[in-house]
Each structure stands twice: as structure tokens, then as C-alpha cells.
């Protein structure tokens, strides 16, 4: 098992909460982590792993910090 921290931003935060500490299988991906908190969005999503852009299929390691949010913008 590995442990990661997941932060959700924007509307994801409002619906699912902001901070999550998750225990996952060794070969878990970012997609698995998001599914654990109820997020199944595949298209309109930005994921960042350890401050670097990532893909849903990226494998996770123990201690990773993942941030996921719908694309944002503003002024």
C-alpha cells in the first residue's frame, strides 16, 4: 500500500471536499485516486503530481501530492 495526499480545487472542492489522505494499492494511478473520492471526470480536468502536470494514467508513489481541478481562469 502507498499513501498519498490529494487536494481538490474549484467545483471539485465544493462537491467532494478539499483535502484527502488516501491509502492505495501499489500500482494505483491518479485515476484510481480520484475514483476513490468519487470523481470520474475524464475530459475536463487538470491533474498535477508533485507540482508537475500529469495524466490520469500516471502511476502514484508513496508520498505523492496530487492536485486535481477543472480548468480554471479568470481575471
Amino acid at each position: 500500500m502507498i499513501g498519498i495526499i490529494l487536494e481538490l480545487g474549484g467545483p471539485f472542492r465544493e462537491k467532494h471536499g478539499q483535502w484527502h489522505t488516501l491509502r492505495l494499492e501499489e500500482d494505483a494511478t491518479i485515476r484510481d485516486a480520484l475514483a476513490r473520492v468519487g470523481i470520474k471526470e475524464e475530459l475536463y480536468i487538470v491533474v498535477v503530481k508533485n507540482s508537475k502536470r500529469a495524466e490520469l494514467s500516471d502511476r502514484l508513489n508513496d508520498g505523492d501530492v496530487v492536485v486535481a481541478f477543472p480548468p480554471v481562469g479568470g481575471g
Partner: protein
Amino acid sequence: MAEWTLRSVPRFDGESKAAGELEFLSDLFPDGCLYASTVRSPHPRARVLRVDVSKAAMLPGVRAALTAKDVPGLNAYGVFVQEAPVLAEGMVNYVGQPVALVAASTEEGAERAAQEAIVSYEPLKPVSSIEEALAAGAPKLHPSGNVARHGVLRRGDLGKAMKSCFFSLKATYRTQKQKHMFIEPEGGLGYVDEKGVLNLFVGGQSPYRDRLQVARSLNMPKEKIRVVSYPVGGAFGGKDDITVQIHLALLALKTKKPVRLVWTREESGEAGYMRHEFLMKLETGVDKGGHLLANKAVLLADTGPYQSFGPAVLDVAMENINGPYLIPNYFVDATLVRTNNGISAAFRGFGAPQANFAIEGQINAIAEELGMDRLELRRINLWRSHEEGNFGKKLGDCDGLRQCLERASASELWRTRRKHVTAKPWRKRGVGVALAVKGLGFGTLPDYATAAAEVDPDGFVVIYFSNPDYGQGLVTANAQLVAEKLQLPSKAIHVSDADSGSAPDTGSSSASRSTYTAGNALLDACEQMLMVTRVEAAAALKAPLESIVYTRGSFTASSSASDAQASISIFEVARLMRSRGLSTKFEGTFAVPRHDSPVSGSLEIPHLIYDFAALVGEVEVDELTGFVRATRFAFFPDVGRVVNPVLASAQCDGGIIQGLGYALMEEHIYEKSIPKTKNFTTYLVPSPTDSPDEIYTEFVRTFQETGPFGAKGVGEIPIVPVASCLADAIRDATGVTLRELPMKPERVLSALRRRA
């Protein structure tokens, strides 16, 4: 010692733009391209009973005629809330709403086909104003009603504080819809290449986010979509959300041909975005000494039928409605209202100019009531560095705000304001002042950027980032930052296009963030480059790593500086690396610092970093006609360390003149939800004769610790205080207080007559 920042390097694309040689995305006419046209609703609100494009599709030269049924994925778009239909189905909710698309081999053929499309409507009574939308029994424009968002912020005990005030001022402010009126209307070109990749060359502000919105509506993998957004002929926020991207994608995929879709000026006037109209009711209370004790603000904003950026615009207005002043007790009640008046979305300042007009109006009126100097009242209420701010979070460095105010106070225009008289007694001169604050970036929303830098053996470095430059000069500014970091001439820095196919995702060009965010990511990429190439240089020089020093494009082994062989250029290192199959392209990242979470009742409040400004302005008011001419401005912005003084000053000139238009003449008028000001004939923008005689800009000296070489951003802050400043100047000249924009001659004259 800075060499390439604080330096007015000529704009990289300046010559080609000035010579008319640069091809904008609506200038692209590839061989065999098709021309697209959009079938639009003539009604502000109607049921769509039938859409039949079969006759249009049969016309000669017509290659595609599409309706909502042809949208394979989500028939909706919107950055924050996906609810604006790609093509209308069942209902239309604003004049100009797209219902069908056609593409033909000629422009005339496409227009003809659009006219032949049969759409039957059952017109319904539109909801034409904020007041109508909120009236009992109003038609519901959305299943949840006409309130798209409601937010409340509160601090302290407003009721108790208001009772304890020596004086409180109640006033209502109204600001109008403003169009962006960029020179190049919304448009672009789309085609599917030989690899099956959908290419979209579109005037936009965020290639990667556009790509995701297209992918969602086309139901296709994002990897099969490429969006390029450079060069763009102006945007100001009006191209931040989707315009033609999804339509072009649908047509290009259907026809397998290059398709060109460029809106006419009138289409842009009907269907393009605009600045939110706001109705703001404030009650602001002070003690005898002028200390602000309480502020109650009720904000109502017209977002049109679909929200787009509306929720975030409302947030910025809520954040700005207390100004850059510490107010211990406040209650802010803000509502985003749906109407049938077209879609309001992002526009330079993003809710801040509207809120600024109200709170600065309150401050100036309170100062007059108390007999206090307008700047002194501000000074005693200013935010203070590293102290708790209005939102319960610690403020960052606000010394720039104090400097802005002090410079304004010491300015010649302010000091000599009492001496300003005209030769003609019916022409009155006055001087006004306003402060402004604008958050940089997206507040507490997550914001991450990736950029890249590649060293080429031929003696240059290519930088890659996806922020479109639509006139701001950010390409040049970011190249200067890299030149500074690598100690290379700025001409040795080449900049790639804002292209999702080649540049990493740096996010959108908005929120005054592009130089700050992309600049930081680029500096990180340069850091990676120097780290790796230094190791390679040590190997090439057969010298210990710790002896290698980098200076002006060369690595030198310091222990044997006299040896001619002990030095190697970074470009030679790149050649050696490439000969071994190694990449010389390096990625950098940047996470924008932010507060942990938004305050209750908001989406993204507060920001961690702010731009500040003070603006002093002089007007001449003709009391016989009501005509107001803004004659001089003295502007003191804090935008961090200035990367390129000429480009930054140009941003200030542009923002102030755009703000002048907003203050005095610009107004996108709807009558019963029918747009009446769709082109330059009916929608007035400032011309050279309206421009002031002088705009004196002096950047206060600050250094943003987290910024690239101390920089923040300059895109928005200049427009924020202009309307407030000019309203104060008109009051100073005539004694008349105006609380509604624009302050056009008939409105000024009417107020003067009421005064009489």
C-alpha cells in the same frame, strides 16, 4: 546588475505588426479552404420549433450544414459551468445565439446557405434587466431560476458598527455593459491533418483549456486536438471562453477540409462577450476621524442567460468592494442574475472596475462630507503589510500601495489642482483621484504552469509557453526574463507560438498572470538547463564540477582560467549533447502561491498577491453641453519590478484610455434584450481626439519576492480606477456627483440641470 530587465527592448513582433506583414489567424486563407457561416437567433428568447438545414445543404458548393444533432459530445461549453449550448436545441436565450452552421466553397455561398436554413421560432417575452429577472413571476431562464450564483461575505457586527458611526453614506451605483471592440473579431481556421489531428488556429486566450472544451463537445481524445492561438488581434478577456473553436472543429471534422470561420463585426456585437453590468447599493460608515468602520454592499450583476466567467467575476467584485482599505465590519451580498441580454464574461479588470467605481465613489463623498483631504482619508484606512486583512488572512507586502498614494499626493497634477482654471467660464476644470487594487492570478484556485527552454547548437535558445500574446507584449517580456537568467542577448531568445502541439501548458493569458506565471516557469526551465549543461560542460572540459562557472553563455573551469581549452559555450555543449542523442530541451514548472482555501461564501477570495495603483486625473467639463474631456492623467502603479518600461507604460496608456471610454462614452445598449450597438457606427470608443493630452506614468519601486526578477503583472490594474477618478474630477469641477456610467454628455447635462 540587471541587463535585460528594466530595459525597453523593442517588441519582438513590433516591426511586422507596424508594417502590416504579420498574418493574424483570420488572415489565413489556405488553398481550397471552405468558408463557414453561423445561423443565429434573431430573438432574445424563443422556443425553437424546427431546425431544417436540408435545403441549405443541397445548395451548390455547400459541404456541411450542421445542427445540435451533429454535436457528438456535450452540447454545452463554459469554463466554470457548462451550460451554453454549442448549437441551440429547444430554446434560444439571446439574440445571436448559434442555431446551425454551414460551410461552403465560397463566402457568398456560405452566407446564402445560412439564409436558406429554416428555423421556426415561437418568440417569448424576454427577461431584459436585473430588476425584471428578480421580479415575482418572472419567466425562469434556468430550471433553478434566474439567480445563477449568490454569495455572502461578512465580518464583524455590521449593525452595531453602523450605529456607532459618526456618519454613514448610502448610495446606489450603476455600471453598464462594455464591449471589448478588439480590432480582429472572433475567428480562426480549422483542419484535420494527415495524421488525423484536428488543428485549430483560433484567436483565443488559453489553448489547452480550449482544447479540453473542444474534446468534451467532440467526444474525442484531447491528444487528437491541437490549438494554436498566436497572433491574436486583441482580446481583453473577450476571447477567454469559447467563441468559434467548437464550431470550427465540428465543420473541419465533417468536411475534412480546411474551414475558415470569422465573425463579422455585427456578429461580434451580437454574440461576443461583454463586461457585466452591475447595480451596487452601498452604505459606508466612518468615525469622526474618518476611519472606516462599516460597509454594507448589495451587488447585482447581469450575466446574461449563461454564466461563462460570471461566478468568478462576481467574486472579484466582492473582493474589491471594500477597496484597499481595512474595514472591520462588512456585509457583502452579491447575486449573479440571468437575463436574455447576451453573455457577459471576462473583461480586463474582471469585476474590479465596477466595484472600484462604487467604493471609491463612497470614499470621495465621505471625504467631502467630513471636510477631509481625499488622500488623507485613504491613507489612514490603507491595508498594512503583513497584518490581517479584511478576509481574516495575513496580507502580503502592501508597501507599494502606500508608495502609490504618496506619489499621487506629491504629483504636480494633484498639488496644483486648485489652480486649474479655464479661460471660458462655462468650461470647468477639476482634478480627481482614485486608488485601485486587483488580485494577480486566480486567488485560491489552483494555478500551475509548465514551460520549456531549449538550447540550440546554432547559438540561440527557444522558449515554449502557451500564453497567447494578444498585444500585451508578454512574448518580449518573457524573452527578456530568460535573457537575464541565461545572461544572453535578448535577440538570442526565440519564442515559439502559443501552440498546444509544441508548448507546455502555461495556462490562460488572463488575470494579469502571464508574465508572472510563465516567467517563473521559464526561469525554472533555465535553471534545469544550466544544471544539466554545467555537468556536461565539466565532462567536456575534464574539470571538476565545482570548478565550473557559467557567465554570459559560456562555462569556464575557474581553476584553469588561463587555459584556452578550459572554456566552452552552452551552445557547444548542446551540440555535444545532441550528438549523443540527448535532448537539450528542459521543462520548468511553477505553482502560483495562494492561500489554503477560500473564505466562506466565495469561490477564490482572497488573492495572495495584488497589483496596486493611484490615479490622478484632470477633466474639463463643458457646462453648456455636458461634454467631458479628460485632459491629463498622472498614474502611479505598483506592478512589481518592471521588465520592459516602454511595454509596461503602453499597457498603462491602453488601460487608461480603455477606462476613459468605459467612464465617458462606451455602452453596449440592449432594448428589450435586442442589441442596438453592434458596430463602430453605434458603439463609441475613444478616438485620438478623445485621448488625454498627457498620461504620465511612474512605476513605484517594489520587488515581488515570488515574481520573476521581482515582477508582478500590469494587464488589468490601469483600467480599474479610471471611471472612479473621472467621476471625482467631474465632481471637483462642477459639484455634481455622478453614480452611473457612462458619464456621457446627456447624463452630465441632466445632473447639472438638477444642480441648478
